[in-house]
């Protein structure tokens, strides 16, 4: 086995995904600590220009696999092609961004190698030659120091946003890699379409007040609208209020909903699951109100208040009215 890090790069609409560039950045630092190289792999049927873009992210090598069977994503063809790459590269670590598509096939790839899988990691270090990962457990409330056992190839996925892209000091070379996918039976893809856009567009809002599970129930969710009214803000929500139909699904902010970047984001009773955080981290100023002082949302906030939101919000509405005269 080498000390190399193999990055599986994903693409959509003819462009390398941002999360894959983050993975290359992470891999460069890990490979430097391991004393190995970064090799990225790109799967598709027309990857030449994307391979150049990926090569500009650094690392030693980009392997591109162009095959008609890879024109459209299927886990069957992806796993088969990547098995061939892993057999040749013999990497110490296989790294991918923790995207939905990655979660569709990547655990299967790890299981096919009977290997260690460490999903959704927020940090990676190398201690005495060994990989050490940090990942969130128990609804994101705790950090877990997680280490692979044994010496075989380790599979890990990197949390979106955990490894911001850093410019490369060099360009990787691009090489063709051919994998024999002749016998691979792929599933039938019926269609791929964008989720129906709702009528609520939160992406243009300057101020958003969002409610989470901690708001309590559908009636109590009115308090979120009340504060939004007082501030002239839009109303959003994390997943649980939408699932429970306290508010419309189109108000959902996060990885399955809208991605917003307002000037001010006020999170009421939102614990801070990563699926929500990826949708609102871009806000300039984040205020978190939560009765659990350990809620993960406080890690993201500029200002935090540990309080019962149903006591705090009415007081805040009064304070806003007073301040605005």
């Amino acid at each position: 086995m080498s000390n190399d890090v193999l990055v599986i790069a994903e693409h959509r609409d003819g462009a390398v995904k941002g999360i894959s560039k983050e993975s290359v950045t992470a891999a460069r630092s890990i490979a430097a600590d391991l004393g190995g190289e970064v090799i990225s792999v790109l799967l598709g049927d027309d990857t030449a220009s994307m391979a150049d873009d990926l090569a500009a992210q650094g690392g030693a090598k980009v392997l591109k696999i162009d095959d008609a069977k890879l024109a459209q994503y299927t886990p069957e063809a992806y796993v088969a092609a990547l098995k061939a790459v892993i057999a040749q590269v013999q990497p110490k670590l296989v790294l991918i961004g923790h995207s939905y598509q990655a979660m569709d096939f990547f655990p299967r790839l790890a299981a096919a190698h009977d290997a260690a899988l460490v999903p959704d990691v927020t940090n990676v270090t190398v201690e005495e030659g060994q990989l050490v990962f940090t990942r969130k457990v128990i609804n994101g409330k705790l950090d877990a120091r997680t280490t692979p056992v044994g010496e075989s190839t380790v599979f890990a996925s990197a949390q979106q946003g955990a490894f911001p892209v850093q410019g490369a000091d060099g360009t990787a070379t691009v090489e063709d890699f051919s994998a024999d996918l002749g016998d691979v039976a792929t599933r039938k893809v019926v269609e791929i379409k964008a989720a129906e856009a709702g009528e609520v567009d939160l992406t243009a809002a300057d101020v958003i007040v969002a409610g989470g599970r901690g708001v309590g129930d559908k009636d109590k969710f009115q308090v979120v609208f009340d504060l939004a009214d007082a501030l002239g803000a839009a109303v959003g929500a994390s997943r649980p209020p939408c699932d429970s139909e306290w508010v419309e699904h189109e108000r959902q902010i996060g990885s399955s909903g809208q991605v917003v970047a307002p000037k001010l984001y006020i999170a009421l009773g939102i614990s801070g699951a990563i699926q929500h955080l990826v949708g609102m981290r871009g806000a300039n100023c984040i205020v978190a109100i939560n009765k659990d002082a350990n809620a993960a949302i406080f890690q993201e906030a500029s200002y935090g208040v540990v309080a019962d939101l149903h006591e705090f919000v009415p007081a805040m509405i009064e304070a806003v009215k007073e301040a605005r005269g």
Partner: protein
Amino acid sequence: MKILVCVKTVPEKDARLRVASGDEWIVEDGLGVAISECDRYAVEAALRLKEADEGEVVVLSLGGAGASKQIKEALAMGCDRAIHVTSDDFARADALTIAKVLAAAAKEEAPDVILTGQQSDDLGYNAVGQMMAEKLDMAHAQIVLTLEKVDGGMRISHELDNNLIETVDLSMPCVLGVQSGINDVRYASLKGIMQAGAKPQKKVSLDDLGLSADDLAAKVKVEKVGFPVKTSQAEMIEGDAKDAAKKLVEKLIQEAKVL
């Protein structure tokens, strides 16, 4: 159609967590527990599949004695019988080890469809169903939103990327990882609760499943857990509701200049 649905008992969402001495894991004694959120939707999806066709729904759970209550809850919701793989050793287990145990238990049942929640609330791997599928050589899809039986298999739709939904046809048997919020999860009826106690519950040990120590050797170890070291500069605002609200609004106007 035989449907197997995997259910995990996890700490309740708002449970007060304490880290055990030695930092190895959380204190589990006295901790409120519940069925992991996505798994509830998987149970509902399983019951609906049965109702649209026919057959039986078998609930499969791996956990200690404490998991019995959640298994009974799934039975009260309408599952026909249960298999409880009893072990206390999997609280911090890695995804592959859990998948191997569940796959071994599933294999004996030879189901047409296996449903899991896409991710557990505790370890949050988002991987066990996929790994079961690999070990059982079945088709699989993750983050499933809709599922229906069609001629020769299952037609499912699932989230493949931000706001991108793919519809695919899978051959059966298959494993499906269900997203939360995809259906209205039923409450157990009084009748269901009364009947649950009489439904068959099979307790199975790891030995019964024929799993060797080698099969169950951990691939990944959780060495330590802890509350995150604060990395942001979050300014915590203290005081009673009125004082804190006033201070916060002042800061948003004067300091952050966002109001």
